[in-house]
């Protein structure tokens, strides 16, 4: 059996190989965004870290996949280049947790919520509808994309994989 393709921090993967499983392990505040064209069986997964570049970071020298907004745009462009049709693309996302529960740290560090808000706005701007999400809360998640089955799952600590 083929090893899953690990999608690390600030990375993405696109596949049309039915044997492929794309995985973003241990998402905390990071967001995993999957896009699938179920007819052409093309799947992509993004592992974005921050909503958008902060002041002083130029987009030109930045890796677009580090950021939710530019990462979603780049993932969509990559899928279309592979032959996916935008109107058929099914989008699901997971992650965006707030891992710090300590009262004095929560507010300033809630990057997870900002990631979710940015993703929803970016998807709306690109006219992509979100078909499912497992976001927010205070737990880490692993997201898997099974290319052959057009299937996405989410797993949290101590639990089984659940369909998303």
């Amino acid at each position: 059996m083929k090893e899953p393709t690990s999608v690390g921090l600030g990375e993405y993967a696109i596949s049309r190989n039915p044997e492929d499983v794309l995985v973003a392990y241990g998402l905390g505040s990071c967001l995993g965004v999957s896009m699938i064209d179920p007819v052409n069986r093309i799947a992509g997964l993004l592992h974005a870290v921050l909503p958008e570049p902060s002041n002083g970071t130029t987009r030109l020298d930045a890796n677009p996949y580090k950021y939710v907004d530019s990462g979603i745009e780049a993932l969509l462009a990559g899928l279309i280049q592979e032959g996916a049709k935008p109107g058929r693309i099914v989008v699901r996302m997971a992650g965006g947790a707030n891992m710090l529960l300590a009262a004095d740290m929560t507010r300033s560090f809630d990057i997870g919520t900002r990631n979710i808000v940015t993703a929803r706005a970016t998807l709306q701007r690109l006219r992509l509808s979100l078909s499912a999400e497992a976001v927010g809360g205070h737990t880490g998640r692993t997201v898997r994309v099974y290319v052959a089955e057009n299937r996405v799952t989410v797993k949290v600590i101590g639990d089984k994989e659940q369909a998303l």
Partner: protein
Amino acid sequence: MGERVQPERDRMEVLKAIAQEGIQNAAKGFSSMVGRTIAVSDPVAHLVPLLSIPKYVSGPEDDTVGIYLRFDGDLLGQIIMIVPLQNALELVDLMMDVPAGTTQVLGSLEKSALGELGNMCGSFFLNAMAKIVKASFRPSPPAIMVDMVGAILDIVVATSLDAGEDVLLMKAKFADGPRSVEADFWVIPDIHALQALMQKSSES
């Protein structure tokens, strides 16, 4: 090429010296907490590219305990102590002075004990660093997380990604006689703090 390598080597030497001193002092904090001498062995320091952090930890889905604190004062930064869940249970046994394997789950008491450990080790680490660079730091209260290691480390990555490219990883073994437990310390001075650390330590 040689001109680039030498400053990098100097930088690593300075960071290693800080790590060595800081970890030794953290063990003193641990000792004062449990009332016995806790030795520290083989402290090592690496400068790690931020996005490569997951490559330096075990499987990113592994159950892990993270003890997190921030520091402010003359310089700003974060410290996170990462301990695989099984090791954390052994650390609690060590702190409670009970046989290894006694603690099976992390309840509120055990988490509070680990938080206090992070507090002591973090404060003692910062004291050592403060002495070397002649600056003062104030640690925040610790936050405890039990989750996948990748998810815990997201805090560090997400809060530092646009500020700098490298973080300082230190690994050390804490030993109480024949019993020892390994822990990782990630110390993430913000970009200004890292520059100031280098500057001040080269002056001292």
